[in-house]
């Protein structure tokens, strides 16, 4: 082949390669931009302010989001095969955990009500659960503002502020490193508690709750895993304490 043709082929190949690389680069940049746009910093904790504790003329509604069923989680089993392996290895545990009741958590509403009423607040317990994800998104970018727009609930519930108890996870968690468990299963409760001012949508209190407790003595006692079941009820009690502690002082 004449050198001119060889040179031409080389240039075409180079340009072809460059085109592919640029396409990949644009795709990667587009993905990063999309993810960056979706991601937002997690809400930091907001302490109960002195102003809140003194403004006792505002009626406070107390509501819970739907409590999930008790279940198992295997953080660290990141790949699909890892998750399948973890699920299979812990199937009897999962079967039992899914039968555990969550009724004790609903007492949180009355626990909060008693605490707030003892401090002079007017309280109203909202019996039906609140689906926060069905509320419209808030357009405010002011810090410590609820991500959803709760203001329509002021007229619906007839209260000035809303205390929301959200339990997002209840059950047993067992850490994994790919296919291998790296710890014993432990009972876990994860959630958030917050108070929204229904006039301004501002957060007047925000508390992430994450409680973990292992079994006393052995945990692996199928079919009823009494050590883990005991730990499960312990995290419910510890979680209830964690939620209400800021108002107990």
């Amino acid at each position, binding site marked *: 082949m004449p050198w001119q043709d060889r040179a031409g082929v080389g240039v075409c190949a180079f340009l072809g390669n460059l085109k592919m690389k640029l396409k990949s680069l644009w795709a990667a940049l587009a993905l990063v931009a999309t993810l960056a746009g979706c991601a937002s910093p997690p809400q930091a904790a907001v302490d109960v302010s002195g102003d809140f504790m003194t403004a006792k003329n505002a009626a406070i509604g107390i509501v819970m989001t739907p409590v999930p069923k008790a279940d198992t989680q295997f953080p*660290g089993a990141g790949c699909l095969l890892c998750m399948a392996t973890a699920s299979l290895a812990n199937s009897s545990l999962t079967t039992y955990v899914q039968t555990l009741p969550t009724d004790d958590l609903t007492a949180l509403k009355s626990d909060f009500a008693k605490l707030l009423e003892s401090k002079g607040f007017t309280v109203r317990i909202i019996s039906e659960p609140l689906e926060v994800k069905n509320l419209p998104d808030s357009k405010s970018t002011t810090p410590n503002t609820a991500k959803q727009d709760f203001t329509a609930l002021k007229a619906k519930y007839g209260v000035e502020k809303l205390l929301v108890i959200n339990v997002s996870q209840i059950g047993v968690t067992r850490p994994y*490193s790919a296919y291998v468990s*790296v*710890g014993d299963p432990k009972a876990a409760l994860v959630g958030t508690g917050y108070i929204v001012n229904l006039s301004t949508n501002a957060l007047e209190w925000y508390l992430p709750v994450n409680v973990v407790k292992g079994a*006393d003595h052995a945990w692996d*006692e199928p079919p009823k895993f*009494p050590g883990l079941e005991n730990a499960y*009820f*312990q995290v419910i009690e510890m979680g209830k304490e964690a939620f209400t502690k800021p108002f107990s002082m």
Partner: protein
Amino acid sequence: MWRTVRQCGLAIVCATAAVCYPASQANAIGAPIKLADLGFVLKLPISTKVAFQGQVDDASANETGGAMLYPAPSFIGLLVGIATHGAIVGAEQSRKQSATQKAADQVLEPFKPVLDDFLYSELVQRGVSDLGISGPVQVHGLDQHEEKQWVVESQPLFILSQDKSVLILENTVAVYAADAPKTQRYTNVIKVVSPASTDADLAAMWSANQGEALKQLSTNLFTHSLALALRELDGSLDATQHTTKTFRYTEGNIKRMERAELLLTCNRSVVRTLRGWLVSVPNPTPATPLPSVCETMQM
């Protein structure tokens, strides 16, 4: 790691630290037996030291390792990698558990001279007469005994809280007919938590007079646990409420919660846990005593 072994006719679960508990809910009782009237042979490792441990918070973190990449040129290589990873993690967890218990046992160091001389023979001789039962109790290895029909085998473990204020007994008890030692009539763990001591210098208090206070408290816990076992065996421990709830108590500076059924309440509360174990704890405030119930609850 926990393993299941058969020892002296008991199906028990043993940790590598050689602490043994009955397999969960292995305490079938069947028809009541009034050993308090019949009498029995009490069997313990008479010539050995009484077992003591420092208290460990069982829920302390035992996680090891993090994300793992498996260099796996083939599927077999991947399996080998997983197995190796598992073995390493398992060994690390065992090592951590042993190290944790060893660190917790440091609380017993001031009492080592006392505990080295405290044998089960002394524990039993101090306590048998306090059982308050009418039937004869003979101690295997100490008494020249006739063959009694029933044997009560006991494996007590005493645990001292890290703040030294509370002594806890976990007594594994098995009952079987003398002529059928491999057929357990009753097996259970009875846990007794002592009242909290408030002395200004607890180490000195427990050590004084050759450990008299520590030995006497150990004896009181031991006889109380045996009395509860005998009551469960004769059918006189019934759940008063037949509902399960979460009970709270303290062991030194550790707050405990137990999902259990209430069986007795007096100056102490006795509950049956989800494992079927009996737990006796002091009430935070004294209850009005009911004489017929409280006579066996004195400590």
